[in-house]
């Protein structure tokens, strides 16, 4: 198998792993195994996987409240992720962060974020570090269509542009905030064109095509590594599930959701790999099966893990 084919297979594995993880989380909420709230990435897998396929050692990224996909795409351990969602001591944040705050700074994950747009200035600051430390590393900054109406986006995008910082802004346009459509929340035809007003290259990308996302990210990352500053990618995609677990989907039709499901990013990649002869139907079935098995194992690990001791309540407030 060629190196490129292997990369594509890895992408498929990660997309299935995200799909299986989110399926398990959804089911666990309904059963009451997981408490609190969560925001599922189902249907948007191609964006995280395509973009993170361009990450190299030492690169960084910031994520969002809908962040499980970015974690898995960047190679996070699904067992520690699931443990975090269950509030267990073995989780990435010792059970203190939960779904919206998974982070692993030492491996480049600067954290999911409970504040829409809140992570964008952090990404820009991290990019400033990388530049001042004279590296050629980059930061991928993920956020949704809702975040581009926050002041933090505009302030941070402008700062990244004037300082020519190595950051790639990746907007996951899944068409809605919680319920408010992006089309009603802004007058511009695309979100990407807003980046033009900060003087940075920008383009709209087919967000359900993992190859297209990877290719667009590749160009943006190369520009950043070469010292040419930030870029902006608007990846158009769709979330299959509600905004959070309490969403009754009143703002969109069943038909619309079903129509988008026919544009499944996983099916799209799988069909392409089958067509190219890189994958057999049996291989595809095996990859899917392995993903669900890995998530079952992650859930078992999480359930077997203890909660943090009560002494953890007041530790880690200060360094």
């Amino acid at each position: 198998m060629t190196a490129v084919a292997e990369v594509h297979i890895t992408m498929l594995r990660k997309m299935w792993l995200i799909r299986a993880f989110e399926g398990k989380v959804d089911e666990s909420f309904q059963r009451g195994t997981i408490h609190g709230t969560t925001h599922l990435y189902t249907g948007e897998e191609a964006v995280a996987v395509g973009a993170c396929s361009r990450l190299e050692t030492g690169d960084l990224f910031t994520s969002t409240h809908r962040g499980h996909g970015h974690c898995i795409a960047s190679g996070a351990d699904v067992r520690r992720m699931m443990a975090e969602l269950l509030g267990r001591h073995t989780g990435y944040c010792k059970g203190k962060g939960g779904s919206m705050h998974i982070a692993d700074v030492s491996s480049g994950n600067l954290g999911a974020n409970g504040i829409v747009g809140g992570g964008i200035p952090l990404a820009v600051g991290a990019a400033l570090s990388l530049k001042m430390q004279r590296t050629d590393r980059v930061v991928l900054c993920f956020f949704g269509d809702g975040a581009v109406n926050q002041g933090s986006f505009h302030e941070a995008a402008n700062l990244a542009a004037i300082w020519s910082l190595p950051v790639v802004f990746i907007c996951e346009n899944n068409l809605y905030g919680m319920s408010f459509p992006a089309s009603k929340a802004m007058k511009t035809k695309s979100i990407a064109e807003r980046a033009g007003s900060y003087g940075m290259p920008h383009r709209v990308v087919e967000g359900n095509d993992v190859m297209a996302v990877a290719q667009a990210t590749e160009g943006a990352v190369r520009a950043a590594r070469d010292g040419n500053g930030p870029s902006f990618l608007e990846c158009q995609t769709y979330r299959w599930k509600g905004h959070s677990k309490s969403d009754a989907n009143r703002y969109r039709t069943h038909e619309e959701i079903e129509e988008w499901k026919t544009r499944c990013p996983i099916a799209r990649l799988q069909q392409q790999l089958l067509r190219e002869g890189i994958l057999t139907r049996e291989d595809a079935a095996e990859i899917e099966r392995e993903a669900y098995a890995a998530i079952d194992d992650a859930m078992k690990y999480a359930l077997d893990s203890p909660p943090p001791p009560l002494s953890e309540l007041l530790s880690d407030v200060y360094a």
Partner: protein
Amino acid sequence: MREITFREALREALREEMLRDERVFILGEDVGVYGGAFGVTQGLLEQFGEERVRDTPISEAAIIGAATGAALTGMRPVAEIMFMDFVTIGMDQIINQAAKIRYMFGGRASVPMVVRVAAGSGTGAAAQHSQTLEAIFCHIPGLKVVAPSSPADAKGLLIASIRDNNPVVFMEHKLLYGVKGPVPDATAPLPLGAADVKREGRMLTIISYSNMVRRALEAAEVLARKGISAEVLDLRTLSPLDRGAMIESVKKTGRALVVHEAVQQAGLGGEIASLIAESEAFDYLDAPIRRLGGAFAPMPYCPELEKASVPQTPEIVATAEALMEEGK
């Protein structure tokens, strides 16, 4: 010992820390050629260059957020916010991000940064350029809050704040910038969380911080001439508070008066009074704990009203005298 201004002391701290540690850098509005709105960073651009003394656009959220992101990834930024009032524009970044990152991430990250803010009234700058908002930050776990009153403390505490591995809000009262005081050539960092007895006394403890310490000291001088021996305790760090120093002093004097410039309602004085009342010092109290704080109104523009809105020396004297009459 040589005497330098509060402003010069801060500048020395910045310069020495930037020379000592190349991870330290400055960012903020007009901190470069202009030298900072109050002149604190003057000359640092010439010495360290644009890379480490970074002028920013007028974008407080991006200034504090970028500092947070840089701190999270190995740098030690010092952000300047021109007026403490403007920190409200960057509040998400400091309260929801910088303060909480370490805890949310299970202790597996740290955010070593300083946000310097110019605070306080007395310059005729009116409602949006005169506030002292420390109570908000003291309410937030994960932040440290520092408010020096003298040049020597300013230097030692700023050095300590830069070396601290947590986000620190460093409050500089505008009326202090030009105040001179003795500062040793080689200043050591002062521990955060340690109060300082600025004047010893036996009959009453005036607990204060920042510019109000100067007025408390003036008041103590007047009181001494009237036969009242007042101790002045300068908190210096507001979060964490030096609970032990307050209790010790009040146990000795039996009376406590808390003085701050910030609006009295829900201000830090309430917290300080509660800490004393809940402690073993309660049994030593000869009179109720008194507070003097800012009026519950936005800062007015006209000098007469501005002056009336925050504690002045004669008011501190009068309150202390009244307190001495109580519980006799």
